[in-house]
């Protein structure tokens, strides 16, 4: 189901180490589910908590999200693991190889796996992936401002 809306991210707590960082986030999204579908636009939203830990080389993240998309309410969990094939300096093009595993207990495919590659340089980040079980591409573009 396609969701289109606004998302607010709040960093609740950050732990800074000499060579690592951990974060806890809360996220809230409000918008419309399936705005172009036959049923018409439905007011929808989600709430998510996420925690991550990363170094210059490794990235780990856990997310739990509760969604309310019209008649579709669910809770699902996700884990993402990543490794940087090279360590770039500040200002370089950075690359991460990641795999995202999601568990949707109520979904047709309870477990989905998405290998993806993430690039970022300066204030822009792009990630491209492919969900194997659903035969779908993933594409995200984020600009910090």
């Amino acid at each position: 189901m396609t969701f289109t809306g606004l998302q607010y991210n709040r960093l609740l707590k950050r732990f800074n180490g000499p060579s690592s960082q951990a974060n806890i986030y809360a996220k809230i999204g409000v918008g419309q589910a399936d705005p172009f579908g036959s049923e018409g636009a439905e007011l929808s939203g989600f709430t998510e908590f996420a925690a991550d830990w990363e170094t210059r080389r490794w990235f780990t993240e856990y997310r739990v999200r509760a969604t309310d998309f019209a008649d579709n309410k669910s809770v699902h969990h996700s884990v993402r693991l990543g490794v940087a094939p090279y360590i770039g300096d500040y200002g370089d093009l950075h690359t991460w190889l990641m795999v995202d595993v999601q568990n949707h207990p109520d979904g047709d495919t309870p477990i989905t796996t998405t290998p993806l590659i993430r690039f970022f340089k300066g204030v822009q980040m792009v990630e491209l992936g492919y969900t194997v079980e659903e035969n779908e591409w993933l594409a995200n573009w984020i600009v910090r401002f």
Partner: protein
Amino acid sequence: MTIFKTLGAVAALTVFAQPAFAQDALPMDHSKMEAMDHSQMKGMDHSQMEGMDHSKMDHSGHDHAAKPTDNSLAAVSEDAQTIVAKVNGLVCDFCAQALKKVFKKEDAVETISVDLDAGEVRIFLKDGQSLSDKRVAKLIRKSGYSLVGITHENGA
């Protein structure tokens, strides 16, 4: 068939809020800083920083004299007053962009450079300008990082 699973999410606007412990920047009258007595600062023991032995740091492949590729650094003189902040949490270039955004708002700051290897932020001041350690600490915290220590170069 839905080709891009997150087409809807791409249309979403994500607002990255400041950490809950951050404080909003306040207008700062730098003229009142000239007579600041650093010995009155609590919690920051500068006497422990004077003996910092950089030789114990692994500098393999890392040259402090070399500046990262950044056009804004091209105009910075080698004699520019520089504040070097040792910071914890500097592991992500994308996240570290917040440092540049926060510090460039300061009138006294010409530009900054970030060294992810050494965990350092080098703050290059404009001629005749000053920036207190207390202000640097606040800005580092506002950017989402933890300050370990501050050193000064070229009379900053």
